Structure formats: structure tokens, C-alpha cells
């Protein structure tokens, strides 16, 4: 034991006492942290109630319903053509993609099919919705991790795609362009060339994001190995889209089911990742966005001529029956179970939205993670509030 003077000894005792006091004070009690519903990291009005032990999450539970608009009830008092205006607003960043499965379900019940040109344009607009939607995710991802730059790139470049959607449909966010039997209108003059130019810009945007984020040390350490979802769990929870493919499940509804759309007419690749962590989810989305630009270009190369609307009665009555159609939307599997009783409007529409299933895994996934990782995990799961609450 070292010999210490009075002064030092007193200081030593004092520091010991202070440590003891601190230890008593830090005897941790659980704390409940309320994230949202008005928190910038929750993309809207998702509220997450987290019970913490220090920095660690004991349990967390999302609280939904701040944006519940009751679309399933509202569809029961609308006619079939009116429903597209409602379902537009489910995933508001990729609106056109929401209309397609509903229209396909109605067409399936009526046993009609859109003409080839309409199928091509539908698929092109569908992929443009995906690019507009996911490019915002790629920019937003940086903001969640403290990198401000990517979001400016994302908003700048998404604008080109929104201009294309507006040019073709008249609506930037809510096109309401899909009709039973085809499309409202043909493409405007010069749109095809403009689209080709924008697709080149979007590929450049993907490269920029890849250079800025992927490979960045901070980004990797914040996302690698964080929020790992094994494939069995992902399947049980009904995760879909990039979240499922990032867990190593090679399943894309664009490729793996036959729909009257044009995806099977061109070559493209389904991207998967085996890790199942936040990094994998972001990476798969980035690759898919780039792949979408190729899909659009190849579809433009093979765009058939002809009408964009088939013959349908002016007052549409859908024969009685039940139809389920789902498509691979920007957020994942979006499907409608449409029950018709031969009326002007549907009898019941079950809206299966991707984010509802994707977010239902959050209580399982957030157990035991640290508080800053909540933000990364939520960002990488990628949800749109309207898609959870409907």
C-alpha cells in the first residue's frame, strides 16, 4: 500500500464516497421512453413505447392508429372505379403501385385484360413509383445516421421521377390513372425520351448514394449485424419485399407469379442478401432501385403500340366472386382480397399492406437492442405510416 499524505488521503476518501454515492444513484430503474408520435425519426405518426434498462431496450411496442382512415370500410360505400382514389393514399410515396393490384383484382373478376400497351405502361409507371419511393428511403437513411447530404440528393433526383409521373398522369403523388380495362390516357409526346434520360440520372443517383453511404465506416458500424432477422422469423411474420429478400429468401412477386403485367417480358435480376441485418435491407433496396431503372429502359425498348383501353361498359358492374391479387410494391407485398356480389361497388375489400406485417416484427426485433439502434432498425425496415394504418 502506498503512503499518502493527509490531503491526498482525504481526497481519496472523498472520491470513494462520491463513487459510492454515484453507484447508489445509478442503481438503474427501468424507464419508459416514448418515441413519437411526433418524432422526426418515426416518419410520421408511429409511436413506439420502449421500456429501457439503461441504454438497452427491455421491450418495445409500436402503437398504431394515429392515421387510421378506415379504408376497408370506405371501400364498401364506393363504386369500383372510385376505390383507386382511396387506395392511392395508402402508400403515398408510391401511389400508382397501390392502384395496380386492386384494378387487376377487379379485372380478374370481370375476366378482362388490359391491352398490351396498357400493361407495359402500367409496369413502367409501377417501377417509376418504386424508384421515387425508394430513392427517398435511400436519402432518408443517411439522415437517420446523421449524414445530411444524401437527403438533398434524394429530394433533388426524386423530383425528376415525380415530374415524369406528373407528365404521364397529371398527378405527382396521387395519379389515379389506372382504370379497369386499361389506363386513362396514353403517354404524352416526348415522354419516352425524357424517361430514358431520367433513368440515367437515377442510376447516377444510386452510384452517388452507394459511394456516400455504403462502404462508409460509420454507416457500416451502425448497420452491420444490427437488427438481424433470420429467414424463418421473417416468413412467420409475413415480412415481404426487400426486408424478406435481405433475409435470404429469393422471392419476388414480380417474377414468381403470372400477372397480366410486363415484368416477365424483359430480363432483370432479383437481388437478395444473406445477412438479414439493417445493412442487407438497405443494400437490397439500393440494388433494386438500380435494377428498376434497367427494367424501365428495357420496357421502353419493347413498348408495343395500340390502344391503352379495352372495351368496358360505362357503368362497371363486377360479377360476383372473390379475387386475391398482390404485387411487389416498393414496400413489399401489397394485395387486395376483393369480394364482389355483382354490385357497382365491392362487398368487402381486405387490404393487405406491406408495412403492417413489416412493422409487426418490431416488438420481437427491438428486444435487447440499444437506443440509437432503434432508429437505424426502424429506418432499415422502411415503412410508410399510411401503409400501416390504412
Amino acid at each position: 500500500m502506498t503512503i499518502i499524505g493527509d490531503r491526498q488521503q482525504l481526497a481519496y476518501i472523498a472520491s470513494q464516497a462520491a463513487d459510492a454515492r454515484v453507484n447508489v444513484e445509478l442503481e438503474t430503474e427501468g424507464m419508459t421512453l416514448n418515441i413519437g408520435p411526433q418524432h422526426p425519426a418515426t416518419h410520421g405518426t408511429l409511436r413506439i413505447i420502449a421500456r429501457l434498462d439503461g441504454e438497452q431496450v427491455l421491450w418495445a411496442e409500436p402503437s398504431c392508429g394515429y392515421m387510421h382512415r378506415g379504408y376497408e370500410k370506405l371501400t364498401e360505400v364506393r363504386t369500383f372505379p372510385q376505390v383507386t382514389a382511396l387506395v392511392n393514399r395508402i402508400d403515398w410515396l408510391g401511389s400508382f403501385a397501390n392502384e395496380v393490384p386492386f384494378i387487376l383484382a377487379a379485372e380478374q373478376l370481370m375476366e378482362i385484360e388490359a391491352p398490351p400497351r396498357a400493361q407495359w405502361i402500367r409496369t413502367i409507371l409501377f417501377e417509376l413509383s418504386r424508384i421515387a419511393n425508394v430513392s427517398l428511403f435511400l436519402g432518408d437513411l443517411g439522415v437517420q445516421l446523421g449524414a445530411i447530404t444524401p437527403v438533398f440528393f434524394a429530394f433533388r433526383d426524386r423530383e425528376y421521377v415525380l415530374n415524369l409521373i406528373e407528365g404521364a398522369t397529371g398527378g405527382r403523388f396521387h395519379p389515379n390513372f389506372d382504370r379497369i380495362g386499361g389506363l386513362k390516357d396514353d403517354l404524352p409526346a416526348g415522354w419516352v425520351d425524357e424517361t430514358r434520360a431520367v433513368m440515367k440520372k437515377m442510376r447516377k443517383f444510386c452510384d452517388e448514394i452507394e459511394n456516400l453511404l455504403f462502404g462508409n465506416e460509420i454507416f457500416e458500424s451502425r448497420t452491420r449485424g444490427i437488427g438481424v432477422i433470420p429467414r424463418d422469423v421473417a416468413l412467420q411474420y409475413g415480412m415481404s419485399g426487400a426486408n424478406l429478400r435481405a433475409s435470404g429468401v429469393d422471392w419476388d412477386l414480380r417474377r414468381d407469379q403470372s400477372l397480366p403485367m410486363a415484368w416477365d417480358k424483359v430480363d432483370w435480376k432479383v437481388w437478395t442478401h444473406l445477412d438479414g441485418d439493417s445493412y442487407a435491407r438497405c443494400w437490397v433496396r439500393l440494388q433494386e432501385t438500380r435494377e428498376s431503372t434497367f427494367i424501365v429502359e428495357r420496357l421502353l425498348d419493347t413498348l408495343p403500340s395500340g390502344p391503352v383501353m379495352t372495351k368496358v361498359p360505362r357503368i362497371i358492374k363486377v360479377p360476383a366472386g372473390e379475387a386475391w391479387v398482390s404485387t411487389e410494391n416498393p414496400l413489399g407485398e401489397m394485395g387486395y382480397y376483393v369480394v364482389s356480389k355483382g354490385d357497382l361497388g365491392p362487398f368487402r375489400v381486405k387490404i393487405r399492406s406491406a408495412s403492417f406485417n413489416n412493422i409487426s416484427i418490431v416488438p420481437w426485433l427491438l428486444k435487447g437492442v440499444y437506443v440509437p439502434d432503434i432508429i437505424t432498425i426502424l429506418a432499415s425496415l422502411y415503412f410508410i405510416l399510411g401503409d400501416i394504418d390504412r
Partner: protein
Amino acid sequence: MLLPLQSGKASPLSSPTDSSAEATPRQDAMREQLLSDISACLGSALVQSHINVGNDLCVRVATDAWATSAAALKTSLGFDYFCFLSAIDWLPSPFGKGEEDPTAEPVERDTEIKQGLAGGETRMQVFARIVNHRTHVGITLKTDVPDATPVVPSWVSVFTGANWHEREAHEMFGISFAGHPDLRNMYLPTDFEGHPLRKDFPLLARMVKPWPGIVDVEPLPGGGDEDDAEGSAE
């Protein structure tokens, strides 16, 4: 008429009707095979089934066997992807679409309960969709919800993801799920009364002010009413 392309060079853009005409019998045979596998797997739990040719297979199982048949299908036939679970109220809405004049005489409405594909005996049915993620083939499962005590077995022990879907069905239809850990409301306030997606729950916005939707469809100027209603839009 739909395809203005010359028939000679149409191979990459060939008409979709050709391929679907070829594909339909094949898919149908696939679903018939699937149905025989399912009936071998479920035995007496399978009540009724319907093949929606080329699109879907709908299977109705006994209420008691709702969870056990899901578990059997998951383990023995590989239906391991949980898509959704919800319910249908087959009662025709006593309020229609809220398009009538509220001051006029109330109209007579059809109140007969008619169930959809794969039949049914009760007013409400729970239905769900599960998919085999290897073959990418999905089926729709249905079961009757007893009218007197609306309780069906919960799927949570089979598919954890059914948790939120059952909570939603519980608050929207008033159906209880035996074995569910926590049937709290998903969207609505805790003290909310009624079950909004039941057909006898009025859509209050329509009750207060009738929707003018149907009025929008007016006869075209210069055309006869009868012909226009059946004419083409384009």
C-alpha cells in the same frame, strides 16, 4: 382488335390471351393436386373447398381445427409464409351505400346472408392466406365463426405474425381468438364501442350527409339513356 401488331412478328410481345389459355389447365391441375394433398393432410377438418381456376384455392376448415390445420399445413405441406388474416361479415349492409335520401321512405333491402367461395354456415367468417415460399403457391383458408359465441382458435402459436392481424380482426369484427396473448385494440381508443367493419355498424359520415356519388353518372348529352349505359367508355 387489341393487337395492331402484324401476327408474324409478334413473338416477344405475343398476345397475353394465348399464354394464359395454355397456362390455365396446367395451373388448374396443380391446384387440384394441391387440394388432394391438403385433404389428405387435414382429413375431416376440411369442410369445403373451391378452386378459382388459375388463380387461387380456397379451403374451408372446421372452426375447432382452425389452428391445428394451419399447423399441419405449415409442417407437412410447407405453407410457412403468413400473408394475412382477417374476417368477412356476410350480412348485407342494412344501410346500403348511404346514397338514399334520408327523408324518403326507407327502402327494402335484401337481408339474406350468402357466403362466398367454399360456402359457410355463419354470418361471419375468418379467412387467412398462407403461402409456400418455395413453390410460391398460396391458399386462402376460411372458417366459420359461431354466431352465438364469436370465438375461434388463435394462430399465434403457429404464426407469430398473426398477433397483430388477430388484434385487428378482434376490434373491427368483435371476434375473439382463444389463446391470443393480448387482444388490445390496434387502432381504436380502448373505450370505443362497436365493431366498425361489421356491416350493421353505420358509416356515420354517410348517415349525416348522403353521398352524391351515383348522381355523377349522368347520361351523355345527345344520347339515349339505355344505350349509353351499356356503351363503351373509349
